């Protein structure tokens, strides 16, 4: 019981939240940049997953990288981090679903996670595990963020 309380008190420390925010924020910024730089290549990768109707592929390729970048910056600078954490968790769930479905369907596709260059970043079960790993620090922010070390907090839920 004491151990559990110690763990929770450690987990809810603002420094841990800051660490989680910086980690996830940087991951999202790094993931967004190649997609923003090469939208056509990213659109092709989105198409390769064969989950969306053709008409929706480019819209997703245009919007998704900027959504990643904005949420990443919101995390790094502490701008409405709890709201951003909800979007990030939702995005990760969608990514994991898409990747899992591609793997189950036996599609040999590129992950499209951190690179859109031809032949780089093949989708594997490890990619899925890595994305799952990103949810955990995002959950910490969603749960424990008190707006400390943040630029714009708004009034947060407690």
């Amino acid at each position, binding site marked *: 019981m004491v151990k559990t309380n110690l763990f929770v008190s450690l987990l809810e420390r603002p420094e841990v939240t800051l660490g989680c925010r910086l980690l996830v924020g940087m991951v999202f910024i790094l993931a967004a940049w190649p997609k923003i730089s090469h939208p056509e290549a990213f659109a092709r990768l989105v*198409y390769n997953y*064969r989950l969306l109707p053709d008409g929706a592929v*480019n819209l997703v390729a*245009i919007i998704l990288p900027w959504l990643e970048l*904005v949420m990443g910056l919101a995390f790094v600078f502490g701008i409405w981090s709890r*709201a951003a954490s909800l979007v990030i968790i939702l995005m990760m769930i969608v990514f994991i679903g898409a990747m899992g479905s591609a793997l189950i369907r036996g599609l040999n596709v590129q992950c499209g996670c951190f690179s859109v260059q031809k032949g780089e970043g093949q989708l594997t079960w490890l990619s899925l595990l890595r994305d799952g790993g990103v949810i955990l620090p995002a959950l910490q922010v969603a749960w424990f963020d008190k707006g400390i070390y943040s630029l714009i907090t708004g009034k947060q839920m407690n």
Partner: protein
Amino acid sequence: MTLAVRRTCAQVAALGMVAILLAFGSNALRNPGLPWMEDWTKKLTNLTSVGGIPVVDLPVVAGSYEDQNIMIIDARDREIYEQSHIPGAINLPIHAIDQFFDQFQSQFPPVMPVITYCDGAGCDQAANLAEFLKNNGYGQIHIFLAGLSEWTKAGLPTETGPGKRGYGQN
């Protein structure tokens, strides 16, 4: 709905709007920007060549897959190849090409025309393999871009199991 929940929803919406505005704004400034909508399947299946390598269509492959003088190569990973492939196709996974290419080359020297394929227009392996083979001395290379998905859709026969591996023991 409590005030705090409403506030969080508003923040989510605001962050989303900022992202959408930046996305469409940057796309409008890009030259050429990505069209908002595009028929990707048509765009890809209408290609006549990929990276300078000619594309062949379904009737051509259907008419030549039993020809022993043409190598049809499946560029997908082995497990997926074993689930279903074009009868007689040789498996040479592009993702392990460095590991397998020497064996492949000794078993299948570059003397015959080659057709590479993968799952369909939504995969890159066939084009990547064709490019690799072209750079490594294989001539008369073609890509069957419509791939196994169109092959299966057309009701053409498929094979399961180990088939012909382009590496190791067959």
